[in-house]
């Protein structure tokens, strides 16, 4: 395991913090890239997902497209677009936005689908217009699953954005490739540890965001209690059993 010791020493070495190729610069580049890619993917996937979730139409098409997009190998897409576009960030942005779309799309429509139909019906019967229903009922209630989708997308992009360094002088992936090519294991492992730390930090942020975003009264993290089958504690029943096992 002294490979890991070397990697830690590399991370802590102040020489690696200076200059345009230093750790802080690369970290920021990597983070910015991730945020922009997820944002671009959200701009495409969220409206489409909301539409599918609200109207209930086109779901199987969305699932099939998601599955298809998910299966596109990122390295393949990256090299292909890079051949057309040349070096720089164009190809990585295209490839990684495609990677990020399926989880966000799924989060968007699944969030809407998970909402109790009776809630929507009541909203309609009270006289809300369709857009009001979407804005004030479906979006707030569907937010937890959407955030879960964005979280998943972010994690995948952070891990895969290392590939951007294949065609551009950008991001934490530079440490991976430079270390790989010059056989500097410390640099390579150090770089990967940094990517993992970044991913964990983002996961932590998302956990907090998910808790904040859930509207009051909605159970966080579990499927909403199915009213039709709510537990009717009979006499003498152990609450541990009726509460269920989630």
């Amino acid at each position, binding site marked *: 395991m002294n*490979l890991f010791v070397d990697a830690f020493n590399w991370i802590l070495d102040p020489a690696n913090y200076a200059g345009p190729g230093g750790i802080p610069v690369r970290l920021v580049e990597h983070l910015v890239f991730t945020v922009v890619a997820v944002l671009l993917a959200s701009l495409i996937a969220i409206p489409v997902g909301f539409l599918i979730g609200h109207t209930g139409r086109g779901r199987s098409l969305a*699932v099939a497209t998601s*599955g*298809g997009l*998910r*299966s*596109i*190998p*990122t*390295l*393949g*897409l990256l*090299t*292909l677009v*890079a*051949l057309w576009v040349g070096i720089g960030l164009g190809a990585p942005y295209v490839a990684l936005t495609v990677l990020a779309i399926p*989880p966000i799309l*799924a*989060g968007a429509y*699944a*969030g809407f*689908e*998970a909402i109790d139909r009776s809630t929507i019906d009541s909203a309609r019967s009270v006289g809300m217009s369709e857009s009001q229903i979407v804005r004030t009922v479906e979006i707030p209630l569907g937010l937890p*699953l959407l955030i*879960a*989708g964005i*979280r*998943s997308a972010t*994690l995948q992009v*952070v*891990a*895969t954005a*290392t590939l951007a360094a294949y065609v551009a002088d950008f991001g934490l*992936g530079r440490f*991976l490739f430079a270390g*790989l090519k010059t056989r500097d*294991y410390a640099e*390579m*492992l150090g*770089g*990967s540890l940094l*990517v*993992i730390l970044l*991913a*964990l930090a983002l*996961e932590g942020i998302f956990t907090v965001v998910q808790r904040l975003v859930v509207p009051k009264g909605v159970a966080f993290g579990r*499927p909403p209690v*199915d009213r*039709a*089958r709510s537990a009717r504690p009979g006499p003498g029943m152990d609450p541990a*059993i*009726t509460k*269920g*096992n*989630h």
Partner: protein
Amino acid sequence: MTWIWSNLDLLWDRTLDHLVLSVPPIILSFLFAVPLGWLANRYRAGRGVILTASGLLYAIPSLPLFFVIPAVFGTSLRSPLNLIIALTLYGVALMVRVVADGLASVDTDVRQSAVAVGYSGWSIFWQVELPLAGPVLLAGLRVVAVSTVSLATVGAVIGAQSLGSLFTDGFQRGIQAEIIAGIVLTVGLALLLDGVLVVLGRILLPWTRRAPTNRRTLRVARMAEAPA
């Protein structure tokens, strides 16, 4: 496109190589994830630990993992076993959460009835919980299959021949047709395995041929597909 016609045998060989590299991890991920997911579901304390650990695992970038695994397991760097271990780890990371959620979604009433009727602990798992969680597990397994096929292409960088070799070779020589062929075959293979799993699901879980009427199972099944 003439390149494709003159290199059909190369494409076929690579596809077979890729199949042999991606199917074992899918099966192994399932086999490892089920007990882990069961543990996470059964023991409250374990759940947080196991799920965080699997999230961590998925965050590890694939390329460095290929170099770390030989150091830890002692496999040769170039060995396809290297790639299979890495892909299995990613598959398990994805699948554990799905298994935990799937088992958790089994209606407690059903479980209680099984206990009442006299099923033993083992039988409850095999004959009640697992089949009922089946659709959710299948949805998760389909996602694992697709992402394994896609991820296996990265192995080309360390010398494990697969459809990914078409990307590196096409990239070096500037042959777009080769890269496009590689992408199309990867997607095709993923969709093929996905289809096989769907058929498998119909065979093993025939009661799901009708859309589930239990809204709770339906909801959890869709959640399993969603953020994974």
